[in-house]
């Protein structure tokens, strides 16, 4: 799978999709795209359903994004699906952050949760 970061707006919600692998080498780009989305969107959904790998540098970006969304009163949710890579699930579980991040098991669920936020 080709690595990439896609952003699209769905009913006022910005959906940031991370495809493939993301780590320290892409964390700055991921952060920049998320910050840009948070400036104008009423909610933010981050889709990890096509993400095969993340490390703690990216996890920090996701936590910061949730904090900023909360500060702005914007909706926020992360899609962590069965199709997300083993490493994505593993990192969230090992760090205990699966219980602190607002996650949904599907992209559609994350968009709905971010809209309702």
């Amino acid at each position, binding site marked *: 799978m080709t690595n990439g970061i896609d952003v699209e707006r769905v009913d006022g919600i910005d959906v940031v999709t991370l495809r493939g*692998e993301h*780590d*320290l*080498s892409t*964390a700055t780009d991921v952060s920049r795209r998320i910050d840009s989305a948070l400036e104008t969107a009423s909610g933010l959904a981050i889709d990890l359903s096509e993400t095969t*790998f993340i*490390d*703690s*540098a990216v*996890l*920090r970006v996701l*936590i910061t994004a949730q904090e900023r969304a909360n500060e702005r009163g914007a909706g926020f949710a992360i899609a962590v699906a069965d199709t997300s*890579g*083993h*490493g994505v699930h*593993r*990192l969230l579980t*090992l*760090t205990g952050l699966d219980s602190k991040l607002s996650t949904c098991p599907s992209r559609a669920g994350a968009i709905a949760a971010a809209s309702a936020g």
Partner: protein
Amino acid sequence: MGAVSERVEIEIAAAAPGVPLVRHALRGLLSGLEVDDDVIADIALAVTEACTNAVVHAYRDSSGTISVTASHADGALTVIVRDHGTGMAPRVDTPGLGVGLPVIAAIAQSVEIGSPRGGGTEVRMRFALAGDAE
């Protein structure tokens, strides 16, 4: 298990673009060893965290290199991540979460962190290859 061991040595610049290169090289080594995909993913995560720690903490404002050695023998993979930097001084502006070492410790069978002669930091990790062919 045969007597043949496999070994990979990589040296990268201590910069973010090198981190995925190490991960991909490790996967290349493990893909030929009949190791379960989830085990490979775990090892990739742990070694990525070790390399990220080295990139973030070893050299601060100077440049340097990180060497990674992975050797396979007796149903286990030993990975050594070595830098020649300033050692393990804490960094308040770290881009990480401070969870790298706990993640490594949770995945690896054993992990040793040392300060080798010549300076720097060495992280030695041993991983059981449960799906390894006997």
